């Protein structure tokens, strides 16, 4: 079930990507020779140990990081810089603009795009903020929110946009089980509704299988491809099923047991 | 033609300018010369260097500053500026609060003399000339180490308060008269003693270029000045009132009148003992251009007068 489907055109395509950071102590290679692609409506999940370069890949796809080598193409065109066609939910808590209230933060991308009227923007923002459970703090400033509330506001800001590529970096990490399940559901509903293409980073293998149609597993630092898995057949209904648990364990083993790449690929 | 911009500084020395302003004398004389529409602008500037810069940049037409800044400018521009007229004869006193100081010979290194712009101001030159006279040629710089740059008002305040190292001040009207009201202060010398007679410390000057281009305006100004000086000499009380009115001064008019009425003070356009400065500055190397007589650096209008 190697994820290659040359019929569908790729929405984004990462080709032999290597990412490096320059530090005073020298060049740090964060990501080494990673390739993947996602077609229209696919949801690709990056999985890998802490520090393996998931956030870096995401930032590169978003256009914030220039590849040391390799190429990133979005809809066939090389990524030159960031843009509102690829909306990012960052891992950091301080991604909300502190000078805007929660509502203003969520309205912000819509106002920038300025395709909607003020009333529409307001309504849409309120609906989405209600979905993430922030109706109580609509007019609060970010510094008065708890960690999880900040994350939810950031998710709302990304989901409100109708962007057709979403890049999300551990968006649910600071949420409790129930809220997490709810938001996973919201995300999947929205994906079905709008058909956006998703690049998603998470540390929860279950979440990865549930959300993703494709998993891309990365080795520890510097991140190298272990393998790609197709998980499109798993859906919300499989929660708690033996099938899902078996796959979970398999992915866990793939990620954290040392084997050669070739073996891993054979195994899939 | 038709526009004249005049700079002014603080003090009763500039009284002729106040009178001109108060009585619209330039306009009057311009009219007499057939120049109907003359516009007069007054600029309040302080410090010879600012005034020279304003003159050179063409921001003002008539500069009013001390003989020192004028001669420097004259030397540096190779005669492109000349004196229109003197403002008045007035003495500068060296005053002190130290009862032990009677002559320059009594000054010890710790006796500090305040004056504006050490080394270059009129007062500084007077002190140098006094030193040369006292200690002989070549010793004009003997007291330079005692001098401190301090604007007149601050120096006077320091002297009167008696709580600083400043014990002496080579001063100026009206500060010296105000200071001398205090019984602790006494006079060591007057510039008239040093130069042997009345001195005109401050002048009005303009560029030759401006004069050539604006002969009538120039003439009107010169006539106005003459009339103002004469009027002051004739109406000292009214002149004092004019000063208070124009300057919106809070000083006592009687005090101002006493300054004007002082026997040492004389309002006249004729320069007095300016050549002593020109000669001294050239001899000591402060200016490179040599003047053979006071007429070298004044406009022709004055040459008929008995100046020096």
């Amino acid at each position, binding site marked *: 079930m190697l994820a290659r489907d040359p019929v569908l055109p790729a929405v984004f395509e990462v080709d032999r990507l290597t990412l490096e950071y320059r530090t005073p102590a020298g060049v740090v290679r964060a990501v080494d020779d990673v390739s993947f692609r996602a077609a229209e409506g696919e949801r690709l999940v990056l999985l890998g140990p802490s520090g393996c370069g998931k956030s870096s890949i995401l930032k590169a796809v978003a256009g914030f990081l220039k590849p040391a080598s390799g190429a990133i193409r979005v809809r066939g065109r090389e990524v030159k810089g960031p843009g509102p066609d690829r909306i990012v939910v960052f891992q950091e808590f301080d991604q909300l603009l502190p000078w805007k209230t929660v509502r203003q933060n969520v309205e912000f991308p819509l106002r920038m795009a300025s395709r909607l009227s003020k009333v529409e923007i307001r309504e849409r923002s309120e609906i989405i903020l209600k979905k993430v459970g922030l109706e109580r703090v609509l007019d609060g400033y*970010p510094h008065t929110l708890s960690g999880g509330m900040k994350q939810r506001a950031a998710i709302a800001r990304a989901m409100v946009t109708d962007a057709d590529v979403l890049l999300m970096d551990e968006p649910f990490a600071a949420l409790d089980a129930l809220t997490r399940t709810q938001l996973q559901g919201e995300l999947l509903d929205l994906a079905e509704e709008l058909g956006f293409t998703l690049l998603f980073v998470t540390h929860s293998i279950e979440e990865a299988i549930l959300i993703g149609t494709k998993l891309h597993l990365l080795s520890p630092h510097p991140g190298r491809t272990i393998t790609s898995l197709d998980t499109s057949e798993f859906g919300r209904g499989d929660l708690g099923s033996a099938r899902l648990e078996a796959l979970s364990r398999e992915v866990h083993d793939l990620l954290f047991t040392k084997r050669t790449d070739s073996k891993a690929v054979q195994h899939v | 033609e038709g526009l004249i911009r005049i700079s002014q500084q603080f003090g009763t020395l500039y009284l002729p300018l106040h009178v001109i302003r108060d009585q619209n004398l330039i306009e009057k004389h311009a009219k007499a010369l057939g120049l109907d529409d003359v516009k007069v602008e007054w600029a309040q500037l302080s410090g010879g260097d*600012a005034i020279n810069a304003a003159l050179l940049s063409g921001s003002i037409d008539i500069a009013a500053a001390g003989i020192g800044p004028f001669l420097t400018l004259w030397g540096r521009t190779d005669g492109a500026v000349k004196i229109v007229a003197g403002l008045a004869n007035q003495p500068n006193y060296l005053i002190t609060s130290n009862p032990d100081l009677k002559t320059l010979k009594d000054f010890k290194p710790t006796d500090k003399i305040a004056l504006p712009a050490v080394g270059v101001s009129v007062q500084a030159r007077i002190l140098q000339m006094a030193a040369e006279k006292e200690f002989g040629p070549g010793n004009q710089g003997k007291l330079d180490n005692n001098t401190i740059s301090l604007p007149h008002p601050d120096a006077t305040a320091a002297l009167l308060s008696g709580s600083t190292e400043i014990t002496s001040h080579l001063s100026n009207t009206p500060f010296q008269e105000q200071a001398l009201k205090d019984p602790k202060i006494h006079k060591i010398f007057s510039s008239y003693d040093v130069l042997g007679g009345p001195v005109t410390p401050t002048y009005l000057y303009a560029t030759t270029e401006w004069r050539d281009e604006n002969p009538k305006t120039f003439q009107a100004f010169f006539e106005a000045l003459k009339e103002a000086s004469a009027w002051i000499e004739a109406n000292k009380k009214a002149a004092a009132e004019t000063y208070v009115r124009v300057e919106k001064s809070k000083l006592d008019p009687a005090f101002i009148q006493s300054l004007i009425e002082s026997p040492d003070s004389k309002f006249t356009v004729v320069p007095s003992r300016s050549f002593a400065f020109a000669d001294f500055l050239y001899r000591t190397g402060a200016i490179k251009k040599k003047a053979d007589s006071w007429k070298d650096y004044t406009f022709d209008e004055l040459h008929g007068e008995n100046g020096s």
Partner: protein
Amino acid sequence: MSDLSLGRPAEKSRAAVRLRDFVFTSAIIRKILVLALLALIWELAARYMNKPILFPTFTATMAALWEAVTTENLLQSSWASLFVLLKGYVISIVLALVFVSLAVVSGFVRELLQTLISMFNPLPAIALLPVAMLWFGLGEKSLLVVLVHAVMWPFALATLTGFESVPETQRLVGRNYGLRGPSYVVRILIPAALPSILYGMKIAWAFAWRTLIAAELVFGVSSSSGGLGWFIFRNRNELFTDKVFAGLAMVIIIGLLVEGVIFRVIENVTVRRWGMQR
């Protein structure tokens, strides 16, 4: 800076404690206390020194201030100065913001700006005077040039430093939503750097005054309407030290009002409200 400043103070029962709390927490009352204390120190020091010609007492200064306001149109002179000052201030700030915004876009402009700042910032305003006169003549224009010189570089430096310290994530968010050029500066960098910008505005305000007063001393006035600097200069020349201090007190009062009202309100509705500054 209390460790517990996040929370509500524990309820205390006695009225005395309440009063003390009120006095110590109410900004206005605290400010008045501080001012009264300073006035007292001034009065005592001046009485002790007993040199009214160099250092008049607080009461004498206030009397002179009252007299100057009622009989000498001090308020009008202050307004004249303030008006020029505001003009120079606004020009400087707009110029600096434009310049710094360009520096955000282009590395060359940035280097140029940094070089200009480190060149011009240490130059005293009076040094520019002759050149300013050469180009702009006497009067307000030159005064404005000198003022702009005095104010623009420190403000530009503050803004530049602020822009450089904007947290990475907020910058990326702005880029991500497609902001570039002026709208990036206006919508992300300026609000994110607002604490530094406000600091720059305070400094600029202070230095605008310093420079204006000093410049009015040298420049005097070309028109009849003398400003505050001229008022000070004239009274210094006439040895009315109490009036000189009254003029300075006017500067102080305006400064306190601007700082205590305008800047404080701006800070309260922006950076403090946003949790960017305590």
